[in-house]
């Protein structure tokens, strides 16, 4: 199993360790609900060093990234970030990712840990432009600091004015005594905050300083389980659950990152444009339980006449709403907001209704 720069720290902090995407990672420390609520109300710190980082550089970098991602990177400029996905050439999704324009002719692609090798091989196979590619996943560590108190905590560690970093932009500079740290106003929780990128050799020092600076703001480490419940309350897709090689970004509600702008000739553009125009048969939708019960991945969804209409892709008990919430692909006719559907939980039909995202505001 691979470790991150922080694995030994998690053990000191009492983290319950599990294998995730080949890494030894903390699934929880003090308890999922406690960690979750602390991120929503105060501030939490996550080890996300397992995520992958791929550099694309050189004169052909723009053309290559524009081709392999569904969003339009012509809209980027140095310091800006974009959520995007890699279409797989068959209408599905290889991975979802963040595209950072680091500088002119230099992009950083941040990908899911579980897909690093798959993405890397895919990018190599598509690189007819001969853009310069570098897989830096094993060199770069990422820390996510999330929650309303994040800016106050991190401002103690840098002269960069953090409140000026707008959502989905980043600044590179000195942070916690380390040069060239990427401070990115992004996250997977909906609670606000930053994601910090540095080399592995500096990572522990940064983590320790954040923990120290965060003490009076109630900072606590949060594990993968809280990361999942937090993202699900916002309705953010998780690759492998809500999107994968068989789901299209249009079906997944990711039309907003699938840009059919002029000159954006990305892989699967024609296919996806046609799909968008003609409409899809099923759509990823959010629902919350009206009756008790917790929807789980793989549970079947039905209409009031007990016709199978879809399947749950993600589900949990929302720590903030204290009710079962879920997402799933549902036949288009049943996806109207407010529509009542049924989740089959242990052989029983439990009422749920289609809702708008996010679940929690």
């Amino acid at each position: 199993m691979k470790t991150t720069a922080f694995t030994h720290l998690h053990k000191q902090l009492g983290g319950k360790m599990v294998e995730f995407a080949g890494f030894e990672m903390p699934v929880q420390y003090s308890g999922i609900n406690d960690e979750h609520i602390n991120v929503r109300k105060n501030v939490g710190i996550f080890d996300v060093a397992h995520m992958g980082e791929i550099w694309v550089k050189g004169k052909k970098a723009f053309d290559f990234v524009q081709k392999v991602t569904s969003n339009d990177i012509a809209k980027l400029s140095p310091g800006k970030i974009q959520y995007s996905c890699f279409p797989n050439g068959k209408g599905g999704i290889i991975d979802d990712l963040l595209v950072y324009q680091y500088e002119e002719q230099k992009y950083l692609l941040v990908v899911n840990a579980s897909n690093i090798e798959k993405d890397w091989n895919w990018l190599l196979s598509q690189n007819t432009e001969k853009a310069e590619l570098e897989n830096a996943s094993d060199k770069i560590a990422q820390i996510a600091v999330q929650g309303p108190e994040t800016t106050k905590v991190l401002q103690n560690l840098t002269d960069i004015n953090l409140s000026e970093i707008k959502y989905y932009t980043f600044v590179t500079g000195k942070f916690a005594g380390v040069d060239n740290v990427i401070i990115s106003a992004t996250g997977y929780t909906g609670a606000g905050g930053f994601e910090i990128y540095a080399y592995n050799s500096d990572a522990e020092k940064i983590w320790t300083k954040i923990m120290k600076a965060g003490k009076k703001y109630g900072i606590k480490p949060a594990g993968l389980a809280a990361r999942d419940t937090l993202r699900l309350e916002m309705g953010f897709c998780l690759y492998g659950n809500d999107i994968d090689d068989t789901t299209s970004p249009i079906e997944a509600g990711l039309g907003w990152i699938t840009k059919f702008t002029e000159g954006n000739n990305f892989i699967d553009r024609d296919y996806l444009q046609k799909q968008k125009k003609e409409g899809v048969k099923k759509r990823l939708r959010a629902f919350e339980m009206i009756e008790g019960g917790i929807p789980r991945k793989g549970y079947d969804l039905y209409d009031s006449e007990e016709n199978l209409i879809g399947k749950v892709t993600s589900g949990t008990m929302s720590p903030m709403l204290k009710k079962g919430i879920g997402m799933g692909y549902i036949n288009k006719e049943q996806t109207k907001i407010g529509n009542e559907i049924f989740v089959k939980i242990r052989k029983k039909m439990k009422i749920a209704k289609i809702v708008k995202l996010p679940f929690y505001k």
Partner: protein
Amino acid sequence: MNIHKNLKYTNDHEWVSVENGNAIIGITDFAQKELGDIVFVEVETEEETLEKGEAFGTIEAVKTVSDLFMPISGEVLEFNSELEDNPDIINKDPYNKGWIIKVAIENKNEIDELLSYEEYSKLIN
């Protein structure tokens, strides 16, 4: 690890206490710690007579769903309805307020066959 000497135990990490001829059943401190935050307990077998080993309900933590099994045979007399709204009582107080069901003992031998404190201690250590 918190274990009570006067209780009986199962390999599924349940405890059984005999009170006035009935069995009170819950899950052990070890089990609640392994599960983590308990968010839902469902028991829909009240007034049903079940065999030892049959599932009488379900317990859900944030990440997992587990069946609850009858440690002995008998009628399910009562479900601790406090758990419907506050399932986390099991995390806080697994041996007292966090009891799950009360069962009419059908066969006393089944109680004797359960694990003793010493045997259960060995199991979890």
